[in-house]
C-alpha cells in the first residue's frame, strides 16, 4: 500500500516535471513569438547568430535566474498594466515544503526566516485538517502599508506590496498591523544575506538587512522575465497558480486556467475575508484531495514536524 502510494507520487511528480518542462518550452515559444509579432520585423536576414566573443562556459543555477534588479525608485512603480493574483489549491498540497525551500534559496534567507509558511489548519474540532501554504496576501487594503511611519512599505500599481529595507526603520508596526503574521524581522545579521552579491532591490527582497522587516514579494524580479514566483515554479504538485487578474488567467506552469472559472468551479475564497483587507491570494478549498493530510508528515524534518505537535491534529495523533 505504502509502496503503491509512493509509486503514484513519483510518477505524478515526473509527469508534472515533464509538464513543467513542456510548459517552459511553450513559454519560450510564446514569448519569443510575442516579441516577433510586436516588432513586426522580417527575420529573413537573421539566419545565423553572429558570435563575437566566445565566453567562458559558466554553470548558472537555473533556480536563481532573475531579471536585472531594478532601482528602489523603479520598484515603487509596478509592472505597467498588471494586477497580480495567486490561487492556492489546498486540495493538492501535501506539505512537500518545496515552495518554502525554493523561496528561501531564491531570496537568500536563513532557515529561520520563511516568506512562505505552511500551516496545518483545522477550522474546528470535527472539521478536517488541511495544509495551508501562506505567502503574503498583497492585500488591496494593506494595513501594513497604512501604518508604516516612513513609507518603507508600499503598494504598487500591479498590486504588489513591497518593502524597501533601505528605508525601513524597524519599528515592526507593520508586523502587528498584518493580521496574517506574514512579515518577518531580521533579528540579527544572518550570514545568508552576504551570499547575495548583487545590489539590493526591493523587488528581490535581497540581500536582507539586520533590523528591518521583510516578507514574501510575489517575486516581481522573476515575473519581469516571464517566470513564475519561486514557490509556484517549484511546487511539485502544482498547488500554486499565479497570474494577472485583469487577464483573468492563472497558471502553475503546467496548467493555465481562467481565473474566474477556477474560482467559480472550485468555490475559491479569500482567507479571513471578514477583516476587509481584500487579499490578492485566493484559496481553493481542500475538497476531493489528492493526498491524505498524513502524507505531509512523511520525510519531514524533526524540527518542522514538532511545529505541529500542539495543533489539535498533532495532539490526537501524538506526533
Amino acid at each position, binding site marked *: 500500500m505504502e509502496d503503491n502510494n509512493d509509486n503514484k507520487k513519483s510518477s505524478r511528480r515526473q509527469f508534472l516535471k515533464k509538464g513543467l518542462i513542456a510548459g517552459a518550452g511553450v513559454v519560450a515559444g510564446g514569448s519569443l513569438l510575442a516579441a516577433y509579432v510586436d516588432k513586426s520585423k522580417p527575420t529573413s536576414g537573421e539566419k545565423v547568430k553572429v558570435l563575437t566573443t566566445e565566453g567562458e562556459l559558466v554553470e548558472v543555477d537555473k533556480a536563481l535566474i532573475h531579471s536585472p534588479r531594478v532601482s528602489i525608485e523603479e520598484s515603487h512603480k509596478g509592472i505597467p498594466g498588471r494586477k497580480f493574483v495567486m490561487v492556492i489549491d489546498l486540495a493538492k498540497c501535501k506539505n512537500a515544503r518545496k515552495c518554502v525551500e525554493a523561496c528561501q534559496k531564491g531570496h537568500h534567507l536563513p532557515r529561520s526566516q520563511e516568506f512562505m509558511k505552511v500551516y496545518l489548519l483545522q477550522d474546528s474540532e470535527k472539521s478536517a485538517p488541511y495544509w495551508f501554504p501562506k505567502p503574503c496576501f498583497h492585500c488591496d487594503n494593506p494595513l501594513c502599508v*497604512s501604518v508604516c511611519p516612513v513609507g518603507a512599505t508600499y503598494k504598487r500599481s500591479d498590486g504588489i506590496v513591497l518593502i524597501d529595507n533601505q528605508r525601513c526603520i524597524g519599528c515592526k508596526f507593520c508586523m502587528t498591523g498584518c493580521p496574517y503574521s506574514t512579515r518577518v524581522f531580521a533579528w540579527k545579521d544572518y550570514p545568508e544575506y552576504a551570499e547575495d552579491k548583487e545590489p539590493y532591490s526591493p523587488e528581490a527582497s535581497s540581500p536582507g538587512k539586520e*533590523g528591518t522587516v521583510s516578507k514574501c514579494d510575489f517575486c516581481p524580479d522573476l515575473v519581469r522575465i516571464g517566470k513564475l514566483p519561486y514557490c509556484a515554479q517549484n511546487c511539485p504538485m502544482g498547488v500554486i497558480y499565479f497570474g494577472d487578474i485583469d487577464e483573468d488567467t492563472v497558471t502553475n506552469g503546467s496548467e493555465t486556467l481562467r481565473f474566474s472559472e477556477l474560482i467559480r468551479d472550485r468555490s475559491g475564497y479569500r482567507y479571513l475575508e471578514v477583516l476587509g483587507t481584500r487579499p490578492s491570494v485566493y484559496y481553493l478549498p481542500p475538497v476531493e484531495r489528492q493526498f491524505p493530510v498524513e502524507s505531509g508528515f512523511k520525510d519531514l524534518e524533526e524540527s*518542522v514536524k514538532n511545529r505541529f505537535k500542539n495543533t489539535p491534529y498533532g495532539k490526537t495523533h501524538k506526533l
Partner: protein
Amino acid sequence: MENKDTKEKLLREFAPQLEKTSPATLVWILFLLGVIAWGVYAFVAQVTKGHIVTGMRDNVVWGIYIVNFIFFMGMSYAGAIISGTLQLFRTEWRKPIIRMAEYLAIISLLIGPGYILLCIGRLDRLHYLALFGRIQSPITWDVIAISTDIFGCLIFLYLSILRDIASLRDFSELKIPAWRKKIYSMLALGYTGLPEQVKRLRRATDIMATMVIAIAIIVYSVLAWIFSVTLQPGWHSTIFGPYFVIAAVYSGTGVLIIAMWVFRKVYRLDQYITRKHFVAMGVLMVVLAALFGYFTFSDYLTKWYGSEKNDESLIRILFTEYYWPFIFSNYIGVLIPLLVIGIPKLRTITNITLSALIVIVALWFNRYLIVIPTLESPYLPIQDSRPEWANYAGTWVEYALMAAGVALFCLMFTIASKFVPVMNVSEMSETPKTESSELFKTEESLL
C-alpha cells in the same frame, strides 16, 4: 498674596536640600549610576549582536520595551493631568505635591520614548521619521504628539518653577556656587512679583495647564490607537483610548504617592506632606481604580461574552498561562486601593503607600498582558517548534534596560530635587502654614 516671612522660613528649611549632598544620597546616586551602566552595557550588547539578544521574535515583536514605554508615558500623562487639574481648580492641598507631579510628567516623558527607540531595529535611521513621515501612521501621530507634549510639559514646568527660581535668586542665605546662582538669575527672567508679572504668569500657567491636560489625553489616546487600529484580536477595541488614559492616570497617581512618601522621608517633609495629602491622593486613586476596573471589565466582558474564536483563545491564555499576573493586575490591583481607602481605619500613610506600590506593579502587568498575550495569539495559530519564537520571555538585556530606565527616573528626580525644591515654595507661602499642619494634627496623631 505671598507671605514674605513664610517664604523665607520655607526657603531656609529647603536650603540644605539644594546646598549639599549627603553621603547617603551620594551612595544612592552612585548605585543608580551603576544600574544605568548595566543598562548601557545591555544596550551595547543589543546594538552589536542585534535584537536577537532580546526575547522578541517574529510573533511577539514588541515586548517589555513597549510595556515600559506605555508605563512611563502613562506616568507622564498622569503627572500632567494631575498637576494641570489641581492647578486649574486651585485645589488647596495641591501646593506641596504639585511640583512632584510636574517632575513626574516631564521626567517620565523624557524616559518613556527611549524605550520605543530600544525597540526600533535601525536606530541609525531614526531621522527618517522626520524626513519621510507619513501622516497616516499612528507612529507619526505619536512622534508629533510626544514632541509637542515634551515642549508643553517643559513650558508648564518652567512656568511653575519660575517663582521659586526667582525666590532662590533673591535668597541671599543660600550657600551655593556662583555659577548656580547665575543660572537661577538667568532663568528667573527678572521676575520680581510685580502685579503685571503676576498677572501674566498666572494667565500663562492656566493656559498651559489646560493645554497639558488636553495634550496628555490626546497623546495617550494616540498611544492606545497604535494598538487598537490594528486588527489584532486583543487590541482592536474602541475602548482602548479612554481605557489607556484612565490606566495612565491611575498608575501615575500611584507613582506620585510613592514619590510623596519617599521625599517626605528623605527630606523630612512630615509637616508639609501630611496624611491629608495621602488621603486626598488616595481618594483620587480610588476613583481612578473604580474607573480602571470598570474599563477593564467592559473590555474583557465584551470579548468574553461574545467569545469570538480569537477573543476566546486570548482569554483562555489569560486565564491559564497568565493566570496570576491577570488576577494580580486586574483584580488585586483594583480591589486593594478600594479596600484601603474605602475603610477609614485602614487609611494610613503606610497603607496608602503600599497600595500605591501594588497599583504600580499591577498596572505594569496590565500593560504586559495587553501587549504580549495578544501577540502570542494571532489569527493564524503560531506553529513553531522553537519555544522562544512561540512564547515571549524577556531576556537580561531587556530587564537590564528596564532597571536602567527606573534608575534614570530616580536619578533625574533626585537631581531635579537638588535644583529646585520638590515643593512649590512660592505657592505654599501664599497661605498661612498653620492651616496645613494644625488643622490635621489630630489626624496625624492617628498614624
